[in-house]
């Protein structure tokens, strides 16, 4: 019987170390062992232990802590598999509804052991690729229909072929592991949970294009990923998978890891290359493309973590098998990171072609507290908010683009009635304007102006022309900006205006925030008829904004109130309401 403990960043943050201590201390002296594996993506139930019985059955235990881990371990020592802490059938459907290629090793193998990867079929694709030759490899990638998973969706075989045809003795394979989309954590899970899968994919790309060097550009905010990659590379050296004349094939390869330093724009490939050269991450026009002149001005192929993580499966199973999944234009599977107001958030890998509803409701259980879904944001700060009545949209690159959003890296943020769409637009514009490299006027100044307008609107100082100005500015920036950051930055604003124009109008015309989020447009009021004068809210208030006499209704001073909401959380009588606009209590 095996006991697999999810040991990724979120697992650790949720208490996996306490669970580990509880299990190991109870198992001490027995033959029972705990294996540390990567995150299996069931983030809603961390910390998780998966039991694999001798007959191969999998039973999932979740939400453990030090105490319940000991209880569990004691029961196991007594020959039982207890019911307590088991995931329900509905919760297990989270995994059953998925088709995992990229995530197939996450939560199953020990990411700190190359032997674990090999035992599970790892490096068979590399061995096959070493005998296939570059042309055949690229043919299979073409047949698979694999498109770049970082967000742009560019056909992978095309890029590889372009780099292959560039003449040079010095070529590079670069992995963009700068996962910068807020709300996206797929790449982190793969790098922490199955690093060899990415490295193997990069090496196969190396064979295809004729490169001997792989560079992984990882964001600095992922220290555990960096640690596991370094370890994986060292183990590859020990086993002879790296170096000169690998397995007598004549193929040489080695890896270098470069850490990012905190710049979203470095996810854009020319900015990434600038950063790799020790410069400010400022994009440049293309051509020349990296395939012609990339890192150190040599032919370079840059792909995203998830793109590389698909390669070994394609080589092992054939491009056609990959293409048998998905839609006409978007083949294979895609990993989505579900977060926000969803019941069961985490990593979902499914074939292209499901609808957004299928994922949000079918796999993730719908909205927290059974509230009503308002929108799903796809594509991060470059994407858009898809409203409730369009959640039956089939997920593939072209269909999502038609809504005004983009597939992006796969982050899906689920929003309910408590989310203000104007506030979300402001949030994204704040992000992109800060992350703008500053080089071109449309982006540098355009995003700043759009943000100013959005701030005025949420501060209750919007004017009638603002909506049209935002649209005009947004459309100009899309056309005029130099790089992908700029020409997609207006998308969240443009889609929220398209689908939620009434919210903007409420903010501007009626000084009202329907979602009751924008602080300048809401007030907290105590309902005198419901207030018992218990004074608890007054004691809790961090800015002393609530006053009164015990046993009489208390009063909130709106000018002092910072809208932190702690009074509402404290009140046992539901006596405090949030009002906006013309509402009264």
């Amino acid at each position, binding site marked *: 019987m095996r006991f697999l403990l999810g040991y990724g*960043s979120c697992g*650790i943050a949720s208490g996996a170390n306490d669970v580990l201590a509880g299990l190991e201390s109870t198992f001490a002296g027995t033959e029972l062992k705990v294996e540390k594996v990567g995150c299996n993506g069931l983030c809603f139930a961390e910390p998780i232990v998966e039991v694999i019985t001798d007959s191969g059955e999998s039973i999932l235990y979740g939400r453990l802590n030090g105490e319940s881990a000991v209880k569990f371990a004691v029961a196991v020592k007594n020959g039982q598999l207890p019911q307590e802490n088991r995931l329900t059938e509905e919760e297990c459907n989270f995994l059953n509804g998925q088709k995992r290629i990229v995530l197939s090793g996450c939560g199953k193998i020990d990411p700190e052991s190359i032997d674990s990867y090999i035992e599970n079929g790892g490096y068979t694709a590399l061995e096959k690729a070493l005998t296939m030759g570059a042309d055949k490899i690229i043919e299979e990638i073409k047949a698979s229909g694999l498109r770049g998973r970082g967000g742009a969706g560019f056909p992978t075989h095309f890029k590889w072929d372009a780099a292959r045809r560039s003449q040079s003795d010095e070529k590079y394979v670069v992995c963009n592991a700068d996962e910068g989309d*807020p709300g996206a954590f797929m790449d982190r899970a793969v790098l922490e949970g199955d690093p060899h899968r990415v490295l193997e994919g990069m090496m196969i790309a190396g064979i295809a294009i004729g490169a001997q060097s792989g560079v992984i550009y990882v964001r600095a905010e992922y220290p555990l990923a960096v640690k596991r990659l370094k370890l994986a590379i060292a183990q590859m050296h020990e086993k002879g998978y790296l170096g000169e004349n690998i397995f007598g094939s004549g193929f040489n390869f080695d890896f270098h890891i470069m850490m990012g*330093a905190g710049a979203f724009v470095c996810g854009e490939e020319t900015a990434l290359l600038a950063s790799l050269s020790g410069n400010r991450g400022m994009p440049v026009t293309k051509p020349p493309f990296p395939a012609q002149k990339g890192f150190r001005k040599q032919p370079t192929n840059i792909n995203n973590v998830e793109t590389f993580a698909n390669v070994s499966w394609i080589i092992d199973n054939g491009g056609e098998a990959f293409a048998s999944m998905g839609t006409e234009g978007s083949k294979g599977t895609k990993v989505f990171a579900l*977060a926000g*107001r969803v019941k069961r958030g985490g990593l979902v890998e499914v074939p292209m072609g499901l609808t957004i509803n299928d994922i949000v409701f079918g796999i993730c259980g719908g909205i927290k507290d059974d509230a009503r879904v308002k929108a799903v944001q796809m594509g991060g700060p470059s994407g858009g908010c898809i409203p409730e009545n369009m959640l039956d949209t089939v997920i593939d690159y072209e269909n999502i683009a038609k809504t005004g959003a983009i597939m992006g890296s796969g982050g899906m943020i689920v929003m309910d009635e408590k989310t203000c769409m104007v506030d979300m637009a402001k949030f994204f514009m704040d992000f992109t304007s800060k992350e703008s490299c500053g080089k071109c006027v449309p982006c540098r100044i355009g995003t700043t102006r759009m943000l100013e307008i959005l701030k005025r609107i949420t501060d209750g100082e919007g004017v009638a022309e603002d909506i049209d100005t935002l649209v005009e500015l947004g459309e100009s920036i899309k056309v005029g900006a130099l790089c992908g950051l700029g020409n997609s930055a207006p998308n969240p604003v443009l889609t929220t205006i398209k689908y939620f124009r009434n919210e903007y109008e409420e903010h501007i015309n009626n000084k009202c925030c329907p979602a009751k989020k924008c602080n300048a447009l809401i007030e907290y009021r105590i309902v005198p008829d419901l207030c018992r004068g218990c004074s608890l809210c007054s004691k809790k208030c961090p800015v002393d904004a609530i006053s009164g006499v015990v046993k009489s209704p208390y009063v909130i001073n709106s000018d002092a109130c910072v809208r932190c909401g702690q009074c509402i959380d404290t009140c046992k009588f539901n006596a405090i309401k949030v009002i906006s606009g013309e509402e009264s209590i």
Partner: protein
Amino acid sequence: MAEGFEIKINAVLEKYSNPEESLIAILQEVQDICGYISKEAVEYITSKTRIPSSRIMGVASFYAGFRLKPVGKYRIMVCMGTACHVNGSERIGDTIKRVLGIEAGDVTADGLFSWEEVACLGCCSISPAMMINDTVYGTLTQQKVIDIIEGIKKEEAE
């Protein structure tokens, strides 16, 4: 610069055969040594590598990961990602500002704490989240944040 830093920075510079290309990695290591990128450190790197200090400052000021001011012993990073925002990260930032009495980017007078808003930490499922040095704290509430900070203050007092 504090004593011993020059020797340590020399050791870093010796590792890189192409300091211009490896400037970001060099600055990351120097930041680990000195706590932040100080003017003295920049001038020292210039003196050793001939990379103009304007270029070094250009790189140091571009990337959010480089600090140009000292940080506290406990560096609090509040995640401002989308999931955290939707689940209330603004209030977490407000709470920290109130409890510590400092703005984002500043250090408390006793040098114990500093806080900043950072881009997505990738821990969206446990939003709202923050990191204090290398430790992630998730599913935060305003009270939890207060408890964590008070807990650290208590430990330090002992």
